[in-house]
């Protein structure tokens, strides 16, 4: 089955062609890697870009895969979660392609895509991760700028959510701390680089929710603890300045690069230990065969190393997509998820009523 998949959930316009789970081509278009003051996607520009570039990106994906639109057996598209106005042009284009070609359309949850990215393989059939199939039960962890969620899977597409963030996502905490440290957006990689030069024990940041007894996380308090630490260091905290005037934008310029590295390292270890503590608890409770991870935060090397260690301790297989582009937002994972949806449920996964297919910005698994 040849699948053409579209993902416009964020700032990349991405189209992939797959033969089942083999990625034949994957094309990204992004001219708006924004480095705005506030960080992140510019929604209006994201939509304009998707509308303008979807067609050429589709054409490029087809030609890179050496096929034509006539060779495509089905289409797949992300319908959420994501930015509403960014999702819309992708969905519209997928509907149009499905209608004009008469080929079926599968609507895919972006977060399920991140998990199924682990089952993608290259053209020759070599897996892009350390596994070739899921072994159940498994723990599925999605960690990104918008999500920090933990699921037990007893079978394909059988998800039971057992953990989630109660406030900020882990990737969001990296980005917001990065902003406090004057790193711009996205900040995950910069914090990691900076942390490599720093002392992770320089500051004792909290590991929120460690004693909560459940499998949930909270990253908002950690972010605030970093903010206060910055102001303690630069000495404007507790002085007689007007209350409410803790401004972070001008704070980072008063820190030395060693202080920034120490904060980065101490924050990073707190963020990772908070995450891993609950994962270990879930491993004890559910005795899974695998830990399958998806989402951009798994590109953090310190996190990978920590997860590898605990999976070794538990005798559990750890899987995450190896190339960075397959961890962050992409259409290949949507194609792979769609191919498994079709394999598991056949035509039942096809969109029947196009009028009812709409974007669902806070779609849950």
């Amino acid at each position, binding site marked *: 089955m040849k699948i053409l998949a579209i993902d416009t959930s964020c700032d990349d316009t991405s189209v992939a062609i797959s033969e089942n789970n083999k990625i034949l081509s994957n094309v990204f278009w992004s001219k708006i890697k924004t480095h705005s003051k506030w960080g992140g*996607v*510019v929604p209006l520009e994201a939509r304009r870009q998707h509308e303008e570039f979807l067609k050429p990106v589709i054409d490029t994906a087809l030609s890179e895969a050496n096929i034509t639109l006539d060779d495509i057996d089905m289409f797949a598209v992300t319908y959420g979660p994501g930015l509403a106005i960014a999702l819309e042009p992708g969905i519209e284009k997928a509907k149009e392609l499905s209608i004009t070609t008469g080929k079926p359309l599968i609507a895919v949850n972006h977060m399920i895509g991140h998990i199924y990215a682990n089952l993608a393989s290259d053209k020759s059939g070599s897996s892009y991760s350390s596994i070739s199939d899921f072994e159940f039960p498994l723990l599925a962890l999605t960690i990104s700028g918008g999500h920090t969620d933990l699921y037990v899977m007893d079978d394909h597409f059988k998800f039971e959510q057992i953990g989630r963030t109660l406030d900020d996502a882990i990737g969001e905490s990296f980005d917001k701390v990065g902003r406090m440290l004057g790193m711009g957006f996205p900040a995950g990689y910069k914090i990691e680089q900076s942390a490599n030069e720093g002392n992770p024990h320089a500051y004792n940041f909290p590991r929120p929710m460690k004693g909560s007894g459940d499998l949930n996380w909270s990253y*908002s308090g950690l972010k605030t603890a970093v903010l206060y630490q910055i102001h303690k260091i630069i000495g404007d905290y507790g002085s007689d300045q007007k209350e409410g005037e803790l401004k972070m934008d001008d704070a980072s310029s008063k820190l030395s690069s060693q202080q920034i590295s120490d904060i980065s390292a101490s924050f990073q270890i707190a963020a990772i230990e908070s995450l891993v503590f609950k994962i270990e608890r879930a491993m004890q409770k559910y005795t899974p065969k695998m830990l399958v991870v998806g989402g951009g935060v798994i590109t953090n090397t310190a996190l990978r190393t920590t997860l590898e260690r605990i999976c070794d301790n538990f005798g559990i297989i750890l899987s995450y997509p190896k190339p960075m582009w397959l961890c962050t937002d992409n259409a290949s994972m949507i194609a792979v998820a769609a191919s498994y949806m079709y394999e598991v449920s056949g035509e039942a996964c096809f969109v029947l009523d196009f009028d009812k297919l709409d974007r669902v910005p806070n779609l849950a698994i």
Partner: protein
Amino acid sequence: MFEFTAILPKDLEIPAKSILSQYKAPFVVALCGELGSGKTAFVGQFAKELGITSPISSPTFIIHSEYPVPETESILHHIDLYRINDVNELKELKLEEISDSQNIIVVEWADKFTSEIKSIFNNIPIVWLNFEHISETSRRITSNDL
């Protein structure tokens, strides 16, 4: 004028209760204050007071989340303008479309677009709520609309 010092997170129910005793849907709660000043934590407490049981996570990434309010026709719209850069982007969110009916709309980082918020929601009441850091665990919360 409403002004008090809140110990986080438990005291956040005080402004939440105060708002809900004085305003009936549709209305807007416009939250102003720095990063880490307690805005999202307040929305969590506010949602709890409305009877919403699911956790309120930060909408910074997706900008706009919706939660049905139990046993009512209302929807709680949770909007975060942290990543919105200018007025044109704000317009793209089409917030005027949710300003009628029985909605309760909570907007984080509302002070980035004070005049636009006032004009978009000119047909329903707006409660402006300011959060200021006092210490790691306490915040001053003020409002002229309570």
